């Protein structure tokens, strides 16, 4: 199984060689479809064999030899409850993305699919990597194809959009690289006999106790990088632009997979590595998450461009994810994980649908459409399901994630206030307003534009690529436990472990040695810490 995991990760990368061999555009499309489908099929055993009760250590673990001279930096991949669903989402979306760009990409076809495949390997690596350093390397591997995907095959302002996207993201990650090196040395000194290490197992070791002041700075450096990638409210401005200018496939990958790297990294690294800082800053992140929910929804409401509207709705949905993660309880974090998957499915579907409209009409303005429902009945059904899923209608997937997150936030001890949940819930109402309003303007009403009379319904390929997404949208909505069960044990373990370590570090810190701002900052959660202390004593 370890070997299989590696095969799944690298198959797309080696697939690029196949694409370079076949010359004809049509063959390039078929071979990419073949490679991505094979990757998906091969990844299924990983899901089926997964032991959902195991916690604390990853499964299918491959641990290489340290390769960075005398530093303990290893090639290390494996899957656990946090990454399993996102890993599967990535392999699942790939063939769909390939199909969605079947007829819309005619320029440098081989180049386009090569970029998609490299991106695929990078993304799978990001989710599977269990060494912070490898995570960084895989992440950078996803940046370069994304840069070209938007820059070469994008819309009118593609160059500006891609440069902005690229620089924005890298700025954050360079800062993180510096923090990462610091963490590596610190961990080396505390838990690895003085040898630099970024091994995930050692970074979450109980003996690895960063001081509170150190934690604050490192948390902010890591947090900044992840905030940009997610993106969380004040750092979001690259997203609508990149989404709008990217080709359909680029938008789908960006929404379904690339943005998840940010939220996944928060759960995987930011919270466990700096437990005290994460708890102390949780209200701040929750506030930013709530602002993101409301702000994204309000801005989405006034958009004239369908694609931009979907892009802003992404910001709103990701606000929920952030809120759920910083609720610091199992329900919230579970909701966050399932919401990541949901957002990937429903927003991915919406981008594909908008792409289909664009391919037919070469416009994205809402006012150019109207009355399409009569011309494209099948399309209307698909669009309807995706829209309702995005709104969070009970019975579809969006509801599950948002509901769990709001329940988690409501009961959150760390946040300590139900207002986050109350205001966050407004986002659901606003989502209904902007999505349904958009849907009504695009699909119903009289045909105001003659061009729309010539529209033809979606063909078999287009139906075929949407059906699997719709299937999962309904499946998750009806039987969410089929999916949440994968992450439940691991999430519970992770959060408990984080709290325990936070309590230990807080106990070991002498108050008088902290600077004033730090002792004030970490006073925010005294009851948290004392709660855990009580629990420990009872045991």
């Amino acid at each position, binding site marked *: 199984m370890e070997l299989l995991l590696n095969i799944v990760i690298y198959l797309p990368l080696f697939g690029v060689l196949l694409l370079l061999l076949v010359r004809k555009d049509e063959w390039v499309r078929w071979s990419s479809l073949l490679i991505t489908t094979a990757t998906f099929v091969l990844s299924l055993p990983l899901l089926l064999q997964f032991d959902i009760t195991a916690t604390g250590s990853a499964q299918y673990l491959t641990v290489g030899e340290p390769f960075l*001279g005398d530093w303990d930096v290893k090639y290390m991949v494996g899957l656990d409850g946090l990454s399993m669903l996102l890993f599967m989402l990535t392999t699942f979306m790939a063939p769909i993305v390939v199909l969605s760009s079947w007829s819309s990409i005619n320029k440098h076809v081989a180049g386009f699919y090569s970029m998609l495949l490299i991106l695929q390997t990078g993304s799978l690596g990001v989710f599977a990597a269990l060494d912070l350093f490898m995570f*960084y390397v895989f992440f950078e591997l996803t940046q370069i194809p994304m840069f*070209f995907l938007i*820059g070469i095959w994008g819309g009118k302002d593609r160059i500006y959009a891609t440069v902005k996207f690229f620089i924005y993201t890298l700025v954050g990650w*360079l800062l993180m690289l510096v923090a990462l*090196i610091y963490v590596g040395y610190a961990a080396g000194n505390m838990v690895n006999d003085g040898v630099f290490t970024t091994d995930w197992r050692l970074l979450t070791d109980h003996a690895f106790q960063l001081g509170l002041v150190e934690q604050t700075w490192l948390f902010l450096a890591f947090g900044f990088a992840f905030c940009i990638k997610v993106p969380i409210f004040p750092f979001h401005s690259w997203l609508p632009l990149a989404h709008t200018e990217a080709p359909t496939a680029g938008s789908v990958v960006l929404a379904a997979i690339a943005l998840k790297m940010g939220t996944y990294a928060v759960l995987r690294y930011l919270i466990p590595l700096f437990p005290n800082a994460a708890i102390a800053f949780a209200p701040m992140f929750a506030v930013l998450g709530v602002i993101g929910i409301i702000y994204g929804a309000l801005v989405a409401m006034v958009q004239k461009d369908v694609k931009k509207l979907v892009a802003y709705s992404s910001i709103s949905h990701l606000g929920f994810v952030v809120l759920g993660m910083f609720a610091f309880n199992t329900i919230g974090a579970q909701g966050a994980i399932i919401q990541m998957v949901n957002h990937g499915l429903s927003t991915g579907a919406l981008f594909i649908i908008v792409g289909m409209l664009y391919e037919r009409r070469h416009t994205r303005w809402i006012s150019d459409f109207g009355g399409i429902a009569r011309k494209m009945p099948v399309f209307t059904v698909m669009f309807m399901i995706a829209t309702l899923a995005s709104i969070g209608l009970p019975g579809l997937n969006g509801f599950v994630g948002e509901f769990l997150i709001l329940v988690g936030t409501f009961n959150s001890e760390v946040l300590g206030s139900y207002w986050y949940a109350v205001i966050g819930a407004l986002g659901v109402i606003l989502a209904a307003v902007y999505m349904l309003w958009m849907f009504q303007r695009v699909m119903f009403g009289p045909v105001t534009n003659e061009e729309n009379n010539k529209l033809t319904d979606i063909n078999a390929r287009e139906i075929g690529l949407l059906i699997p997404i719709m299937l999962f949208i309904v499946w998750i909505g009806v039987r969410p436990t089929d999916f949440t069960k994968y992450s439940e044990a691991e999430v519970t373990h992770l959060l408990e472990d984080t709290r325990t370590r936070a309590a230990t570090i807080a106990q070991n810190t002498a108050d008088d040695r902290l600077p004033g701002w730090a002792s004030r900052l970490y006073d925010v959660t005294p009851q948290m810490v004392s709660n855990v202390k009580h629990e420990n004593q009872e045991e």
Partner: protein
Amino acid sequence: MAEHIIESIFRFLPEIALTVTLVAAVVADLILKERNRNVAWVVLAGLVVTALLVLRQAGWNESIFSDMIAVDPFAVFFKMLLVIAGLFIVLFSVKSRELEQNITRIGEYYMLITGVIFGMFLMVGATNLLLMYLAFELTSISSYVLAGFTKSLRKSAEASMKYIIYGAVSSGFLIYGISMLVGITGAIDIYGVRDALQAGVEQQSALYVAVIMIIVGFSYKITAVPFHFWAPDVYEGAPVTITTFLATASKVAGFAMMIRFFRISFMESGALSVPGLDGFIAIVPWNIILAIFAALTMLAANLMALWQENIKRLLAYSSIAHAGFILMGLALLTDEGISAMMIYLAIYLFMNMGAFFVVLLVTNKLDSELISAYEGLGHRSPFLSVAMTIFLVALAGFPPTAGFIAKVYIFGATVSAGWIWLVAVAGLATIISLFYYIRVVRNMFLVDPEESSEPVILDYGSTAILVLLLIPVLLLGVYFTPIVTWAKDAVTMFGM
């Protein structure tokens, strides 16, 4: 004594081989007359022999000619880098169209290149202060002539002139600093200086001034801000091959000499780096000055690179900026820092030569050095553009290229020595650098070419040279244990 000299001669074979090559080049130039471009092959053969002789020196740790020159792992490491750089420069020169403007004197050109490499060999080995100065001048003077080689071009002559004036001033600083140091310590080689400093010197402030002057002298060679002003003009005006040579080999040799000098004389003795001195010197020891120079270099050069329209000037500023990154290692006063510098220098050599070689090829084909000339190059010559992108990504310091490894090690060493502010500045500088590297990539791939543009076709020779440069840049990005181990072993210097 005679035995020592004879033994020394056998330890001096690479340098002797270079001298023989130089003479052979003169003779070949006279014999070949009209076909004097073939002198290149004579020099190439000479350099290959030199490389083999350098390889034979692996593992030696000796001092020859009565403590004039050290033949130690450190010197061998740098000699190997320099001879590789020399080989590539000769190959570049064969492909250069620019040099043909002065084709009748091309034999002289190759002779001078051999001469510079000889000077650099002495620079990396020299342990005697006077020999250090002589070696420094030997490389400088030959470089002045090379920078003005295409003398019919106005900007080339101007470049040479500026180079001479700046060079003369800075070597004045160096010799003044050295003479003060000799006066204060009474020693003529770096070991003597170390012993004298360990014993303690009375004239602390004079020593301080001497060290600052020596730093200034070196700073000019390695183009550290604020002594970099000559670099962009000279790099722009000189033929591309010589620009490459100055930006890579010359800088590597300068760094090697600087590292040896400070490592042996000052780090070993601990002088000027420990508290206990009074006044200004205590607050700003010399390594803080180096750190400030490094920070200034990284920030200023990267900022200035943003506004460049000429690709040679852009790469010139980029190479100044890299000097800043490398200089960080020396300020740390740790062996980890020095081995990180050596890793960086080795990788820097390949990625920078690669980028300059692409510039040379593009200039050959399109007769333009402007960044706008690269628009649409991705369609006109995919291989050339992909190669350039890889070199630029490496220069920017991103995985999976060797440039990332170089950055990780130098950042790591700096963090580990506790200089967090310096790493923060370096991170900021890297971010700034992204903007101008990405501009070139953007022009190559994202801007559509004009209708009339024809494909740019490379000959097999150039493709082969590019591949030779791409291999280390990519390979060292994923499998870098050899270079790291080698650099760590090569920190060993004679007399430590």
